[in-house]
């Protein structure tokens, strides 16, 4: 079975609205950065991560960490699948021309470099948390950050420093 048709109650005090208020926009932007600006993929992945987190109910101790981890796992799978079938669009996000330069630059980074840079410098997460979300080690995250900063500084200007 490729897709399962599960529907969940998305209302209620512990439902979608509360989780969305808690993590929604930040998580969505983190996945958007990770996906190099692919809004379609981002919407799908974030909705799916919310679905799985809500389905898990009280079995999840830290919903915020869980939904981030699930979203990044799903996004990585989808990017790998899109890469295999050469489905990555040339222009990923056409509804905000002001961000074209940024997304062009971000797409020159690997997905892990993009995610590490966004989570560190915009979401302000510590390196250990980023490693946990990306299923990586702190050392690897530092290397992703270093490489990501270097590439962005070369493309967009600024310093490659902490």
């Amino acid at each position, binding site marked *: 079975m490729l897709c*399962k048709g599960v529907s969940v109650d998305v209302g209620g005090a512990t439902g979608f609205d509360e989780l969305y208020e808690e993590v929604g926009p930040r998580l*969505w932007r983190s996945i958007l950065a990770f996906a190099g600006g692919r809004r379609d993929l*981002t919407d799908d992945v*974030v909705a799916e991560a919310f*679905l799985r987190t809500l389905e898990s109910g009280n079995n999840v101790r830290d919903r915020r960490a869980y939904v981030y981890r699930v979203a990044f796992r799903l996004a990585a799978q989808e990017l790998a699948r899109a890469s295999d079938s050469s489905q990555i669009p040339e222009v990923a996000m056409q509804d*905000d021309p002001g961000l074209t330069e*940024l997304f062009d630059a971000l797409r020159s980074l690997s997905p892990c470099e993009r995610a590490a*840079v966004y989570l560190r410098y915009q979401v302000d997460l510590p390196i250990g948390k980023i490693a946990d979300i990306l299923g990586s080690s702190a*050392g690897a995250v530092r290397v992703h950050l270093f490489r990501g900063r270097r590439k*962005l500084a070369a493309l967009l200007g600024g310093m490659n420093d902490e």
Partner: protein
Amino acid sequence: MNDWRHQLAELDRTEPDREAIRRRLEEGSRFPDPIEARREPRIAVITVATVIAIAAMALLFVAFRNQPGASSPAPAATGPASTMAPAAPPCPVTDSPLLGEAGVSFTTDCLAIVAHRPTTITVKAGFEPGNDRLQHSLLVCSDKDCNEASQIAGTDVTTSPALVVLNLQGLEPGTYFFEDPVHPVTANGTLYVVDES
């Protein structure tokens, strides 16, 4: 200020479509069931492996019957050439290699260690006058490009003067590569992993 950090912050101008996400959520999952997705490839792999094993046994049986003088089948192939280390690597085999890094270059581009034995590689980085306050790290990879998929072990990025210590689990014999990912063009080399004998 119009640098990469400023532009990255501009990403926060984008807004998700909350109602679109809610609708997608109400429609249910469009993604493969994670349990099924893990199970299906595993069943396929087991099936293919079983068929290959039966075919190989049949071929060996036929070959053995057609060569009455043969006492044993021919030795199996020993693997692709690219993973084979030379019998005698071009540099001495050491138990705990010490690698110097002066400026942004290693002092050698060749290391050799024994297979299947945990080994510590130490980089003595930036102890010379004028070479301090540079960042260093060490990666060991199965591929010369040292892309993410090929990275076997790595250290944190450290500012010199510092000893960068990489603990490697026992590796299979073969040819590997090492680099400082901060200075990959100038600081890199080949790591030969050879059998003890």
